[in-house]
């Protein structure tokens, strides 16, 4: 029997806003399968986003959904989680939203290790505003605001998360659809701040400016440039040139923020 996605979606809200060929829908389906596999339910799950194409994802999900302001998802979500630590809190957003205007909230959520899962849909561009370069746009790439090629270096978002203190960091791609739900499920189960970066495509505002002839070519590019961490162990530095690693990149157990705050309450009340 085919998987029933509809029980996690709000009736009457589809179609979503995404363009044909955009990988965001693949990620949304992955999230739904992950939630279903964990049986975490929808009533006790908050899905929080910022602004941008990816940030429209919560509106279609039948949960407690919060579409905040540009870049602010992690800070709003921190308030939700602190107020109700028993809730599952999932953040969804794009690369620009999360690492440019929301960069400060992002790194501090990582540092606190507050028990939330942040799914970053990295399509390397500001899609909703028409294709301006983001902190994840490769150097040299064309965007509507880099007509002569992008002079900026790009963030490695997974490395940024690890450096800032996230205790679970994984990366997948929109091409590897079957892996997405497994990465997200493992991230949600992890006690602490988990980041799942999904490399995605934006045929409309990135692909056509950067000589991708079709969505298929963009998807194949995601496939060809990614290497599972396990496979990478057997590869030489030369072979890994220009490749990105996928899978669970980092995992550690460290004190979780709301648990630590519960101890603060205990200490305050013991006085």
């Amino acid at each position: 029997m085919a998987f029933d996605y509809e029980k996690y979606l709000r009736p009457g809200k589809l179609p979503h806003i995404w363009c044909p060929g955009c990988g965001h829908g693949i990620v949304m389906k992955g999230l739904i399968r992950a939630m279903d596999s964990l049986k975490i339910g929808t009533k006790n799950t908050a899905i929080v986003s910022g602004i941008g194409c990816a940030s429209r994802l919560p509106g279609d999900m039948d949960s407690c959904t919060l579409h905040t302001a540009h870049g602010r998802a992690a800070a709003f979500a921190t308030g939700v989680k602190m107020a109700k630590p028993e809730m599952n809190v999932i953040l969804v957003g794009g690369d620009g939203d999360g690492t440019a205007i929301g960069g400060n909230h992002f790194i501090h959520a990582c540092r606190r290790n507050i028990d939330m899962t942040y799914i970053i849909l990295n399509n390397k561009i500001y899609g909703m505003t028409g294709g301006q370069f983001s902190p994840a746009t490769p150097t040299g790439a064309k965007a509507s605001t880099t007509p002569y090629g992008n002079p900026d270096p790009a963030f490695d978002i997974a490395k940024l998360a690890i450096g800032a203190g996230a205790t679970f960091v994984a990366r997948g791609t929109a091409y590897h659809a079957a892996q997405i739900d497994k990465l997200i499920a493992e991230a949600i189960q992890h006690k602490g701040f988990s980041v799942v970066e999904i490399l995605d495509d934006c045929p409309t505002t990135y692909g056509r400016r950067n000589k991708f002839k079709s969505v298929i070519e963009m998807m194949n590019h995601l496939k060809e440039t990614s290497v599972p961490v396990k496979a990478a162990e057997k590869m030489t530095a030369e072979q890994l040139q220009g490749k990105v690693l996928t899978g669970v990149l980092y995992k550690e157990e460290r004190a979780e923020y709301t648990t630590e705050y519960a101890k603060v309450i205990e200490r305050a009340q013991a006085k």
Partner: protein
Amino acid sequence: MSKKVAFLQGNEAASHGALYAGCNFFAGYPITPSTEVAEVMSAELPKIGGKFIQMEDEIGAMAAILGAALAGSKVLTSTSGPGLSLKQELIGYGCIAEIPCVIYNVMRGGPSTGMPTGPSQSDVMAAKWGTHGDHPAICLTPASVQETYEEVIRAFNLSEKYRTPVMVMPDEIVAHMRERIVFPEKGEIEVVPRKTPTVPPEQYKPYDTSFGDVPPLAAYGTGYKFHVTGLNKMPDGFPTTKAEVVQAEEERQVRKVDANVDDIVTFEEYLLDDAEIVVVAYGSTSRSARYAVNAAREQGIKAGMFRIKTFWPFPDKQIKALAQKAKGFIVPEMNLGMCANEIERNVQGKAPVLGIFRVDGEPINPDQIVEKIKEVK
């Protein structure tokens, strides 16, 4: 039983007022001259099982209280001028998404970093016009430590009653001076609870106007699944660009305050019955004004004071009534004429409006006001 009495600073009193009102969540960022509020809340909230979090920046603090409010908490943040500028982005979010919250802003010199330890009253227009777009605004300007305590409670009540952000804005003098405060007994001051839904989750709409201009607000994690956005929205919370819906919703949001001005606006009339000269003052400046009015009376001048307690919505009706008989208005304030402009808007040329404007970090003293009163004669 005698009441509990203390000798407190305005900022400390504000914190205890919030706790009396049932505040159980605080998010903030350190900033002079309001940091004492964060310090008190960090110590007191965990004692009652509440939550305190110091966020990475002012915007993050505003975001965290809005998130916590949607999860059912009664929330407070505190800040000062530069922080208020940063928070404006999400104060607008609180207005359009209709999330109850209290913003305690201590007014210091500005613009920008200005004079962090100097008193000012120059944020009063930012309280109304700081965030972009049309939106409701409620701003209270207490003048004593006791009043700061009570006005913070009232701010919580108004934010719940009208489901909107409310600002309390003492100037730095009120925030940092120490005075005797008498704590009310539990139950002595009314605490307004949040209006929560009476309909089952499947029928709930977060902006359902069939319940009036202020629809009930559910909390996340209580079985109610609903959508909240900063976009113009429909009664069910989902975005819309439908012209008639956007127009009606925008008008309703503003009407929540505009149609209830008499419930919200508070003021004090001091010796106004026969007054020819009306001094309009607020915050610490009103303390000098009261002294000046007394001094003028001793010299045979019929002066009185209209003390603004609720700056927004502005007491238009009261000022218009005073303009019918007053020979002149004096407006002392620690900015370059923000309140005076509002007075002129209401007086409409019926009497002269003379300002005493100081932005040098020094308080306005009574002598300056007495001199100005004499100028009208």
